[in-house]
């Protein structure tokens, strides 16, 4: 089973990297770009086939290590 975890900054947490990317895109002529927020994607391969059990595990992984929940939120996507 494969899973993908998206980790992004919580709303209200300043993202200077996202801001810099936005400025760079504006500088390249992409004038339509407004606010940009940057995050990360983590792909995981998991043994087993129980999607619900995997989701529970992934949630624990996010809480314990993958995300810093003081500043970040996460979303879990499971692909069979």
């Amino acid at each position: 089973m494969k899973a993908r975890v998206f980790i992004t900054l919580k709303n209200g947490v300043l993202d200077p990297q996202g801001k810099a990317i936005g400025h760079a895109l504006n500088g390249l002529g992409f004038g339509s770009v407004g606010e940009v927020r940057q995050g990360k994607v983590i792909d995981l391969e998991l043994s087993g086939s129980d999607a619900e059990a995997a989701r529970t595990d992934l949630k624990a992984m996010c809480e314990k290590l993958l995300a810093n929940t003081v500043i970040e939120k996460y979303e879990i996507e499971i692909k069979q």
Partner: protein
Amino acid sequence: MKSAVIVFPASNCDRDAKVALEQMTGKTPAMVWHQDRELPDVDLVVLPGGFSYGDYLRCGAMASQSVVMRSVKAHADKGGMVLGVCNGFQVLTESHMLPGALMRNAALKFVCKPVGLEVQETQSGFTRKYENGQRVTFPVAHGEGSYFADEDTLDRLEGENRVAFRYAKGENPNGSARNIAGILSEKRNVLGLMPHPERVVDNALGGTDGRGLFQSLIEALS
């Protein structure tokens, strides 16, 4: 005063901390590898600066899960003192031994320079030899030192007089909330700060403003 310095892969201020402790206490600290389960019998544990585990995932995130940190937490839970400098501060927040998080500097650049600080709180074993409001200069050297916490946490830190060091007016090098440079734990036995007191204990190395922190510890722990 007996001390230990934790050494993670890619710690790089562990020897600075060792030299400062030797110079100030007259005793050589135990150097403890991150895979060691047990801490020697010490009064103070130092989490040094550096780039533990290559800053993978987030600064301090991997180190916070290392074997030795269980013993460091147990040491703090028993009231033992823990000093985290720079990456050590990041490890302390990632370990939830201190609140908040340290984020990418607001200007996105690594900052390496001396900065002016104000000692905001002298009622602690780390700061009792300073004067309240005393201005000191410590060097900073970090890319991710912008202190962030939600408003309630910031209010609580200030209300409980747990902001030990603040960047002086106009000196905030990284965009830290409320100019916070260093904070104390609830029990006031854990201090995390981004600037490096261990680099300013000798005039030959640019200053002695950091001596007060070690003198405070010696007094508190003797």
